[in-house]
């Protein structure tokens, strides 16, 4: 696995993953640093924790499941958007989440990756976000 090289020395991008599936978290927790070694990386198990971490670290990219215990992905996304509107979202969706995706569209999320999660798609999505952020930032 080739780590992506960050060209300049500007503050590192940060990534928040909100996921309640322990197996998935175990894998992601190992894989993301391997793939994106320079990205600050946080993992939350539910919506409330995700929101708390967001407030603390203000990550640029949020990868979230929709179904979460407590506050779900949508509610969390709404609040995050309210706090920091240029936050990038990558939403992991299951079959039964179709209805809720409309809600994300309203919020302004355009990255969806359906479950079972294909890591290549996730990496591509994260890379795309990094690129966009890099381009936006002078």
């Amino acid at each position, binding site marked *: *696995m080739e780590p992506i090289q960050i060209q300049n020395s500007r503050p590192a991008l940060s990534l928040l993953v909100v996921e309640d*599936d322990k*197996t*998935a978290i175990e*894998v*992601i927790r*190992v*894989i993301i640093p*391997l*793939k994106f070694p320079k990205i600050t990386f946080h993992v939350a198990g539910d919506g409330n924790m995700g929101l708390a971490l967001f407030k603390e670290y203000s990550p640029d990219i949020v990868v979230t499941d929709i*179904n979460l*215990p407590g506050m*779900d992905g949508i509610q969390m996304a709404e609040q995050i958007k309210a706090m920091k509107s240029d936050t990038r979202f990558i939403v992991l969706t*299951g*079959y*039964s*989440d179709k*209805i809720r995706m409309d809600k994300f569209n309203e919020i302004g999320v355009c990255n969806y990756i359906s*479950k*079972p*999660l*294909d*890591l*290549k798609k996730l990496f591509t999505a994260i890379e795309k976000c990094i690129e966009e952020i890099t381009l936006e930032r002078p």
Partner: protein
Amino acid sequence: MDNPKSAATAPDELRRIAEERLKAKPLPRSEMDTLRLLHELQVHQIELEMQNEELHQAKNNAEALQEKYTDLYDFAPAGYFTLDHFSTILNVNLAGADLLGVERSQLIGRRVQDFVAVNASPAFNDFLIKCKEIKCNVSVEIPLQVKGSQPIFVQIDAASCNARQECFLTVIDITDRKQAEAALRDSEELYRAIGESIDYGVWVCDPEGRNFYASPSFLKLVGLTQDQCSNFGWGDVLHPDDSGNTISAWKECARTGAMWNIEHRFYGVDGQWHPILARGVPVRDDNGNIKLWAGINLDISERKKMEEVNQDLLARTTNILESITDAFFTLDREWRITFVNKRSALIMHKPKEELIGQNLWEIFPEAVGSIFYDHYQKAMNDQVTTVFEGFYPPFDAWYDVHVYPFEDGISVYFNDITERKTLEAALAEKRLKLNELNKTLEQRVETQVAEIKHKDQMLMRQTRQAAMGQMIDNIAHQWRQPLNSLGLTIQQIPLYYDTKDFNREFLEECSDKAMKTIQHMSQTIDDFKNFFNIDKEKIDFEIDQLIQKTVSLVEASFWDQHISVTVHCEHKLHLAGFPNEYSQIILIILNNARDVLAERRNINGQVVIKAFKENDATVMTITDNAGGIPEDIIDKIFDPYFTTKAEDKGTGIGLSMAKNIIENSFGGGLTARNTGDGAEFRIEV
């Protein structure tokens, strides 16, 4: 009447007396005296001779007379008896002997009592005593018992002779008179009895019609005495409407001597008018002159009442016959119409007046020889009831006819049934068509049955599909997470390949993790597979376990929707039956609750399952907080194909199936109600 013995002694006695008287006289003293005495004696002698001759003459006369009287006595038609003081018969004439049937010579010295009938003896003795005491003529009528014959009735008149202490009886045979009297009395009694047995008796009037006898029963009825009734007094108690006519008619009848026959009303002491039929005939003497009128009064109130009743009945019957919708007429034995009601006249197209009294076959000659003719003849001749339907071409009509015989003819009820016949014809035609249709019916029924079968199959398929759909949905939910995990486990292998951590241990770890997940998924499949197995037999199952197992099948989807499922189950609660079926019911209700909660986006969706004993029933309630079932559909939710869900979401079969299962397999019930927060489904077994 001289006794011969006394007649012989009288002359001797006379001479002796005469000689004694002569001795007392002095004898003559001179010749002169002697001559004078001689002359005197000679004259006396002649005188005596003359006297003697006269005496002879007188004696002869007397003897002739005696003979004559003896004959009179002996041959008198009445019996004469001379009785001595002791009632012994001293003398009896021929008629008397004849009456007693005994020779005269043998009667002398016997007593009359011996011939008196035993029962009349005391009366006869009284009679004799009376005769002796009163010393005047007495009379008695008594029966005599004469040997060898019927008793004869005699009238005995007696006269007594004081001097001789004798009694003379005159006995007359009055048997014939007595018999006649008895016969008359009998007949009088008979007629009186007859008269009295008739209400109100008999009456007798003089030739001019003046009443002089009326039976007590009549007098009692009208409260009159015979005196008041006599003459024309009975007219006073006649009904005012009858009195004038009756009196004048009676006088006319008495004048002409015709038979009397009239009905009139008398005013009774009971305050009622009594209809009485009086009938009478004149009784004529040998010359044909009316001696009297005799007749009877007949109480005809009953008859009058009956007449009234009959008239009333007749009127009513006529009314009924007139008003019945059936046409009705009667025929006498000569085929004359004796009665015809309005309806009948209408159908016969003739006024009643032209029908009554007419011969049926003359008025309707076309009917002769027709079915009507045959049946009427049969009814009349054989006195049998006949019923038939006949067509009468002149009127172009069908009739339903009932013919009933009676004593004097037949009565006919009939109705125009042309319309019915037309309908019947039409019906027959229709029936024919129907038969045609029937032939194809079987085919159509088959088609229909096939359609129904098809529908049933569809329903079954839909039911199965719905169940399958839900199962797949549930499996999808259950598998999503493990599939994701499995995917990630596999994908991390190549990512690790270039790192120092990639080694055998890592691969084994991945393999174990993957297999664990696969086992879990396999278990899920088995659970569902078992769940959809059809229970072979009833078993006793623990409800708590069953609920937990059922909930575990669907919890993933509830989890997805953030719906909590809480189970409160009484410990060791058991139920006998098919557990999978019971489980299906829970599943159906849980799925509904989940879908409704999801649809209404309830944030804190909650489903509470409770199972408990209530009285003898095992109850399970499944309650949600989705807001409840709209009241306008709460009665329909158990109907098949009733659904509130979008077409792709539900078939409307679930709840009806659940209800069927609980009713048919468990003999229980499934009901739904709103709790306020949401719906509560109650399964009671």
